[in-house]
C-alpha cells in the first residue's frame, strides 16, 4: 500500500474542500472497499479524507420519501423496522450482502460506489481497461464465469457488484450529492454509466462530489417487493444473478411492476422491457417468463458466463413468483 495522507474531516464543506485541493484524494467511510483496492495496488490515492465524523448517519421518513444518510452502515439500514416493512427488497438486498462484519462497517454511500469484483480489474498484473485504460479486457476470452451478460462492450464486461444498488434501481431511488457547486440529486437510473469505450468512468459524479444521502421515494406497492440473490454458497458471496422486483397486483392482474437485475450486468440493471411485459398481464408463470425473455433480450455470453442468461431469467421468474404468491 502506498504512503498517503490521512485527514479527518469535521464538516461536509471541510471534506469537499480537502478532496478538491488534492488531486486523486478519496473519501473513506467504512473502508471495506478502498482499503482492499489500495492493498491490491489497484488504487493509490495520495490522500484519504475520513468522513465518518460528518452528520450523515440518520435514517428518516420525510413525508413521502425515505432518506438514508450516506454514512448509515448497511447493518443500520437493514435493521430499520420501518424500512424492512416498507421496502423488503432493500432490506433483503442488504441482508444478503457481504458478511455481518462487513455490513457493520460498510456505509450506504460507499456501497453504491463499490468497484467491481472482476478478477482482472483487481489484479494489476493483468490487462484491464477499467483500471488501466487502453490495456485491453482480460476477461473477454479469459476467466469470465462471474462476468456480465448485459450492458457489456468490447472494452469491458465487468459485473457491477452491489446488491443494494439493484434494489435502489427498482424503486427509482435518487443519490444526493454535494460538491463545490452545491447540492443535487441524481436518479439511480442515470447515476451509473455503461462501460462503452470508457469503462474507467463509472458514474455521473463530478470529481470531488460527495454522496450525502440515498433517497427512496414512497411507492404504493413497495411492501410487495423482494430481492432474490442466487449464488454458489449460502452466504458471503457476490451474486451469480439477482432480481429486485415489486408488483402491484389486483384481482390476479399485474397493474404495474418494477424489475431490476443484478450480478449479470455492468450496471444495476433496471428492465423497463420486463416491466412493460408485466403491466396488465395476469400474475402467472407464463407472464413472468415473457418478462424474463424481454429482460434478457440482447444479452450476450462470453463462454463461461453463458449460463447467466438462463439463470437470470429463472431468477426473475422465481422472484416474481415469490412476490405474487398468495
Amino acid at each position, binding site marked *: 500500500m502506498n504512503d498517503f495522507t490521512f485527514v479527518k474531516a469535521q464538516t461536509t464543506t471541510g471534506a469537499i474542500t480537502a478532496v478538491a485541493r488534492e488531486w486523486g484524494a478519496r473519501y473513506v467511510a467504512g473502508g471495506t472497499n478502498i482499503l482492499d483496492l489500495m492493498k491490491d495496488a489497484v488504487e493509490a490515492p495520495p490522500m484519504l479524507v475520513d468522513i465518518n465524523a460528518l452528520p450523515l448517519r440518520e435514517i428518516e421518513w420525510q413525508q413521502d420519501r425515505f432518506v438514508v444518510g450516506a454514512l448509515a452502515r448497511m447493518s443500520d439500514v437493514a435493521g430499520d423496522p420501518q424500512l424492512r416493512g416498507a421496502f423488503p427488497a432493500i432490506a433483503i438486498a442488504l441482508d444478503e450482502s457481504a458478511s455481518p462484519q462487513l455490513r457493520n462497517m460498510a456505509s450506504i454511500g460507499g456501497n453504491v460506489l463499490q468497484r467491481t469484483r472482476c478478477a482482472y480489474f483487481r489484479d494489476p498484473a*493483468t490487462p484491464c481497461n477499467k483500471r488501466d485504460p487502453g490495456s485491453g479486457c482480460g476477461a473477454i476470452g479469459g*476467466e469470465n464465469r462471474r462476468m456480465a451478460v448485459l450492458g457489456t462492450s468490447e472494452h469491458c464486461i465487468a459485473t457491477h457488484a452491489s446488491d443494494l444498488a439493484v434494489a435502489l434501481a427498482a424503486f427509482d431511488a435518487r443519490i444526493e450529492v454535494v460538491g463545490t457547486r452545491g447540492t443535487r440529486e441524481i436518479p439511480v437510473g442515470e447515476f451509473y454509466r455503461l462501460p462503452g469505450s470508457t469503462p474507467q468512468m463509472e458514474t455521473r459524479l463530478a470529481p470531488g462530489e460527495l454522496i450525502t444521502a440515498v433517497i427512496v421515494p414512497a411507492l404504493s406497492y413497495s411492501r410487495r417487493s423482494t430481492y432474490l440473490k442466487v449464488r*454458489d454458497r449460502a452466504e458471503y458471496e457476490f451474486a451469480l444473478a439477482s432480481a429486485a422486483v415489486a408488483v402491484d397486483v389486483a384481482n390476479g392482474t399485474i397493474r404495474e411492476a418494477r424489475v431490476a437485475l443484478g450480478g449479470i450486468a455492468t450496471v444495476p440493471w433496471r428492465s423497463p422491457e420486463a416491466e412493460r411485459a408485466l403491466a396488465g398481464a395476469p400474475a402467472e408463470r407464463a407472464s413472468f417468463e415473457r418478462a424474463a425473455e424481454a429482460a434478457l433480450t440482447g444479452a450476450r455470453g462470453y463462454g463461461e458466463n453463458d449460463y447467466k442468461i438462463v439463470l437470470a431469467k429463472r431468477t426473475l421468474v422465481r422472484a416474481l413468483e415469490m412476490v405474487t404468491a398468495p
Partner: protein
Amino acid sequence: MNVPVLGAARSRVEGPEKVTGRVRYTADYAPEDALHAVVVTSTAANARIAEIDERLALEVPSVVTILTHRNAPRVDARKQGPTSTLLFLLQNDVVQFDRQPVAVVIARTLEQAAEAADRIRVSYRAETPQTDLDAAPVAPVETIFGQPGTHARGNPDAPLPAGSVSVRQTYRTPTEHHNPMETHATIARWDSEGLTLWDSTQWAFGVRERMAQVFGIDPSRVRVIAPYVGGAFGSKGTPWSHVALAAMASKVTNRPVKLVVTRPQMFGFVGHRPKTEQRVELAAARDGALIVVKHVCQNETSIADEFVEPCGVFSRDLYAVPNYFMSHRLRRLNVSKPTYQRGPGESTGSFAMESAMDELAYALAIDPLELRLRNYSEVQPNNGKPYSGKCLRECYALAAERFGWSARNPAPRSTVRGRMLVGTGMATASRATHRSGSHARIRIDRAGEVTVAVGTIEQGTGSPTVFAQVAAEILGVPFERVRFLWGDTDLPQAPLAAGSQTAASVGSAVAAAAQALRRSLDELGGSIPNDGLEIVHAEEPPESEEAYATQAFGAHFAEVEVDPDLGTVRVTRFVGAFDGGRILNEKTARSQLLGGVVWGISMALFEQTRYDRRTARIMNANLSEYLVPTNADVPNAELLLVSDDDRHANPIGVRGIGEVGICGSGAAVANAVYHATGVRVRDLPITPEKLLAQA
C-alpha cells in the same frame, strides 16, 4: 486415581487461549530488531526474467536491501530425492509458474516492505505456458508412497461374462488450494550457534534437515521452533521456498527477519492439490458381485517436480474384486508443485470410485449400500493381509439406521420438498493409516507433576490434550497434572504430522515412555526421588505390525436439496459413522471427522482454483472467489464413532482419523445430487451452471 481419562470427550487444553486470541502463532512473535521480508512473485508462468527495475522500490524509506537472482547468495536449492521439492531461491532467471518468488524486499517495517515490493517492476521474456492437461508432456511415475504406481491383480482384461453390467466413466477434480486460516510464516535468526527458525510447519525436524542442506551446515546447527500452527492440511508438510528465503534474508542482513506469506501468495509457491482426471471402469455380475475394477488416473504436476495424487489407492484397497487394474500418469503444466492435501489420493479417488459405484448400483437396480455390502472384503484385497481391525459393516448399519436410509425411494427426482428436489446419497470412507518412529521424554517431579515432551506440532488437532491423556491414563495421575511440550527440534524427535499418523506414532511413543516410567516408579516402591524421574524412549514400529493392514473406515450418508430452476445445492443432512480403532478423545476425534466431512462438502460443491488458460495466472487467489463453505453451508452433521479394540495396529490401538472424513464424503454429496436431479456431474465442483446445462 483410576479415573478413565483416555477416550474422554475432553476439551483441548489450549481452547480458551485460542478463542480469546491469546495463543501466539509464528507471525505473532516479534524478535527485537527484526526486519520484515516481503516476497515478490512472478506474474508470468513460463518465462525468463528480462529485467528487474528496483529504482522506485529503493525510494521507499527503511528498505534495507532487495534480493533478486542477480545478488542472492548461492545456496543449494536442489531436490534431496525424487519426491523432494525444488526450491525457488532466486538462483536463476527461470520462471516456471504463476506466483513464483522472483525477489525479496527487506525493510524495517512490514508496510514499507510491502509497498516497496509493489513498486518493483519485473519484465519477462515470456512464452506460452502449458495449461492443457491433455496436451501436456507426460512425466514418469516411479512410485506412489513407495509402492508401484501401476498395479494389477487377477486378469483385468479378460472378456466379461455374458450378462455382466458395466460402468465406464471419466471423473475430474480441479486444482484446490489448502488455504489454512494461518498463512505460512517464518522468522529466521542467525547467530554464532547457527540458524534458529520459528516456522508454521507440520514437521520441525524436516525443516531442520532441509535448511541444513540449503545452507550447507550440519543439522545440529539448525533449531526449528514450531509454535501453534493455525491449520496446514498438508501444505506445511515440507518447507517451501519462503523458509529458506527468510533465512537467506537474515543471513544477508545479519538481523532476525520475519517473512509472512500473503493470502494471494498462498495460491503460489506453497503447494496445492493437483487437478485429476480419472477413468473408472467397473463390471459386476447381475447379483452385484464385482468382476473387475479399473482405475486409470492422471494428474497435473509442475515443470520441475513430480507429485502423484494417488487416486487409485482408494479402489485398490477397498472392495473384494478378483480382477483389478490401477495406473497413474503425470502431465507437466506451468503450475507450482502440487502436494499432499488432506486425504491425498483417497479424497479425489473416492469421488471417482464411489460415484462409479453409485452409477453401477443404478445400472444393476441394487441399493447402493447393498452393493457395497455384497463386495465387502474381510481381508485387504490388494495384499491379502488381515485388517488390524475393520468395523465397516457396523459403520454402514449404524449410519444407515440413523439416517433412515431404508425408507429411500431410489428413483431420481422422486422426492420433493416444496420447490426443492430432495436427494440422498451414500459412499464408503476408507483411508490407509500409518505409523512412524517417534521419541518421547517423560518426567515426573517430586510433587507428582508430569511433563511429557515430543517435538511434534499442534495444528489444531488436539495433540497437547490427547497425549497428556495418554500419559495420565498410563501413569494413573489426574489429567490436570500432566503438561505436554511440543514444537521444537530441541525436544525428542517426532515424525511428520501428516498421513493420519500422529496419534499412532507419537501416542505409541508417549505410551511406551509412560509405561517405562511407571515400571521405574513401581521398582522404587512408588516413591519419587527428590530430583524427580525422567525417561527418554525411542519407539519404532516393530515388523510384526506389518502383518496387518491398517485402515480407517466409515460410511457417509448425505441429503441435499437442489433448486431445480436455479441449480443451487444445499446439504441439509449428514450422518457418518467411522471406525478409527481406539478413540483417544471423543471430542477432538469428532472435530477431526467433522472437519473432514466439511472438506468433502467443500470439494463436492465449492472449491476450485481458476486459471486463465492463456497465461496460467490464477484468477481467484482470494477467499472471496475461492469458495469454501460458510457455516450456513454445513448442516448439523451427526457423526458416530464405532470403536473397536484394535490390538494389532499399534500399542495404543488407534488408526488415524484426521483424513478419513474427507474420503467419500464428496461422493456421498454428488450421489445425493444425482438422486435429487437425475443429473450426474462427474466434474467437480457441482456448480449451478452444470445442473442447469443438463436439467
